[in-house]
């Protein structure tokens, strides 16, 4: 029988106590995450063992025992002071200007540097979501920059910039050029293709679908082969585009098909009500698309757009196979240099390339995740 004595409420407030030591702080975390069960303990042991087995040798090879300066292979071969040399970074340093510029004439390399700076400005303007007048930024990036870049890199003798034929371009310059052209061309083309795919006009829709499905169904290699081998056949001799331009065309067409699908996904996710509200206000098709639908669609699929760019950046390596001297190919060319023939040259060269690509791609993917998180927060109402 319940009596007044068995009432639970306290007559003094309960004390605020800290949590038990073993369940919080470092110890608690270790317990929950690494040692929570026998299976877990075993896994942790295996992982620690793997790390110990892999990481120290890697550190030793790439940092502690690496050779940072030298003039030729002698510096990186095993010697008495250095029985087991690590990576030959001296090789990378000596070859570095080739890796960045290819055979671009040394006196004109300031033009390439200027191009890099202008490009970085354009990217920063568009990528920073809080930047002012980003519509101007878009015009700069998609129209002004390409023209400026062409003038700078290729040269216009009339205004004092001597011609530099594309056969001299190489290395990171080429990789960046291919990636940038791919991005600049694929976004507008992709939007047009995506709109075309949704068009009510059957001829337009058929043409768009055919192009998109065809390009997405074949490997990039075959598109590049098609561009580099077949394009000269299809045009009369006077217009034959040079090797780099052919590769650029291939990459641009390939990327726009994938971009088209990304944009289409964005367009599909816009609720019908948005279209209807814009139409009810009397907006014509193009006004509706440009002012209301596309801004929303592009915002929503921005993470996917960036992911497509990451894929594009990695795909620039394929121009290697059609004879363009992109960054990877310069590495391949350099590692065969007899002046630097050592057992570690290839590994060093590849490691350098891997770091470059990883930094660029990982940076882009972090940005994409950042944008995704911001979008998710903004939409949470």
């Amino acid at each position, binding site marked *: 029988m319940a009596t007044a004595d068995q009432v639970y409420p306290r007559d003094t407030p309960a004390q605020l106590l800290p949590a038990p030591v073993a369940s919080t702080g470092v110890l608690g975390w270790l317990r929950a995450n690494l040692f929570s069960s026998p299976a877990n303990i075993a896994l942790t042991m295996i992982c620690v063992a793997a790390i110990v087995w892999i990481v120290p040798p890697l550190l030793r090879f790439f940092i502690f025992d690496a050779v940072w300066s030298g003039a030729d292979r002698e510096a990186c071969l095993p010697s008495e002071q250095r029985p087991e040399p690590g990576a030959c970074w001296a090789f990378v340093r000596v070859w570095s200007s080739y890796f960045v510029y290819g055979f671009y004439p040394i006196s004109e390399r300031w033009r390439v540097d200027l191009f890099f700076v202008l490009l970085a400005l354009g990217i920063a303007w568009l990528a920073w979501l809080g930047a002012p007048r980003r519509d101007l930024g878009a015009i700069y990036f998609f129209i002004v920059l390409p023209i400026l870049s062409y003038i700078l890199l290729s040269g216009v003798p009339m205004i004092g910039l001597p011609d530099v034929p594309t056969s001299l371009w190489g290395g990171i310059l080429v990789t960046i050029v291919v990636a940038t052209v791919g991005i600049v061309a694929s976004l507008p083309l992709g939007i047009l293709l995506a709109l075309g795919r949704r068009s009510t006009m059957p001829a337009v829709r058929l043409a768009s679908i055919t192009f998109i499905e065809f390009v997405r169904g074949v490997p990039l290699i075959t598109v590049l082969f098609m561009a580099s081998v077949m394009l000269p056949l299809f045009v009369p001799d006077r217009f034959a585009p040079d090797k780099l331009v052919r590769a650029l065309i291939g990459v641009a067409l390939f990327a726009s098909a994938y971009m088209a699908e990304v944009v289409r996904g964005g367009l599909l996710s816009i609720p019908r009500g948005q279209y209807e509200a814009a139409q009810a206000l009397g907006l014509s098709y193009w006004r509706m698309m440009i002012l209301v639908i596309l801004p929303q669609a592009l915002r929503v699929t921005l993470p996917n757009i960036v992911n497509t760019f990451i894929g594009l950046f990695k795909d620039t390596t394929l121009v290697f196979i059609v004879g363009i001297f992109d960054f990877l190919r310069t590495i391949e060319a350099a590692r065969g240099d007899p002046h630097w023939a050592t057992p570690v040259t290839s590994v060093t060269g590849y490691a350098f390339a891997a770091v470059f690509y990883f930094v660029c*791609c990982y940076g882009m993917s972090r940005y994409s995740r950042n944008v995704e998180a911001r979008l998710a927060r903004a939409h949470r109402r």
Partner: protein
Amino acid sequence: MAKMLQFPVRSKQQWTNIALQAALVVVVGGLIYAAAVNAANNLAKAGIASGFRFWDNTAGFDISQTLISYSSSASTFGRAFWVGLLNTLLVASLGIVLATALGFTIGIARLSRNWLVSHLAGGYVELVRNIPLLLQILVWYNAVLKSLPDLRGSIAIPGGAFLNNRGLFLPQPMFGANFGYVAAALLLGMVATLALRIWGRRRQDSTGQPPRMLYYAFGLIVLLPLVVFFAAGEPLSFSFPEMARFNIRGGAEILPEFAALLVALTIYTAAFIAEVVRAGILGLRSGATLRLVVVPQAMRVIVPPLTSQYLNLTKNSSLAVAIGYPDLVQVFAGSVLNITGQAVEVIAITMAVYLFLSLVTSFLMNLYGRRVAIAER
């Protein structure tokens, strides 16, 4: 959006649309026509033939890996095509199997409660996904496999295999005449197991008794072929590789090109598959926990992007041309194109093959999607 009235009357708008489309057809058609004319002129000038008659001409070049019989002096370009295609399918199918196994493991590891395990798996995924596949292939081929010892210093692997920089030499199974019966028995066993499973499900529907499959499956798939094997006089022997002075005789050879391509494709695609699996299972976390419910739901979410990764792997196998593995692109759009010069036909055929694979896969995916969607309602 305004649709067209079904009256025969055509409004100004419709005429404009028709005119626009006609213009598009004219422009595109005109471009194609001009391209064709130019191509014909240029090809004629270079003395290159047209048409598909080259298919039956003698190939005249060697291929380093042929799954079907091929000789440079007796085989045709057409035969070379099939050799290349089979090589592509070989590396693609093995790659798909291995990448799926590795990818699922990593994907599940990503979800582990163990911080070390999940972050190591995550590190693997980030590292592999952000480095171009071509670079990875080159690393495996040039940096790893080339640094294997040469013929003299071949590493002997227990079981009768040799590893050196020319390749991996394995004991090759030689199938006797009666092996067909064993294969038939295996096939029969699998079909019977499937039938038994369907029957068991039906019985479960009506009586509620769950099917007890394991023993029957084991018996049908393992024991039955084994019995037939012995009864047919053990029609299986092995040809072991033997070290001779300048090469290794006997056995089956796995080219370093093949190995490098396969390893790189597997590791690269596994990273993407891991993400697909992780996304699929994460999407379920908040939902059901029963094994009979979770797995089918997970499959629904995972299968389409998974198939897309399989297609990517198959298309990526074309990078073989960079290291000289004789896949379809390397053999056909490489060697054959160089010899015959008939770029248009060769590239068209190559693209058609991949296009066919892609379209078939999309079609099957749509069927699957529709079947699964109905089940949801």
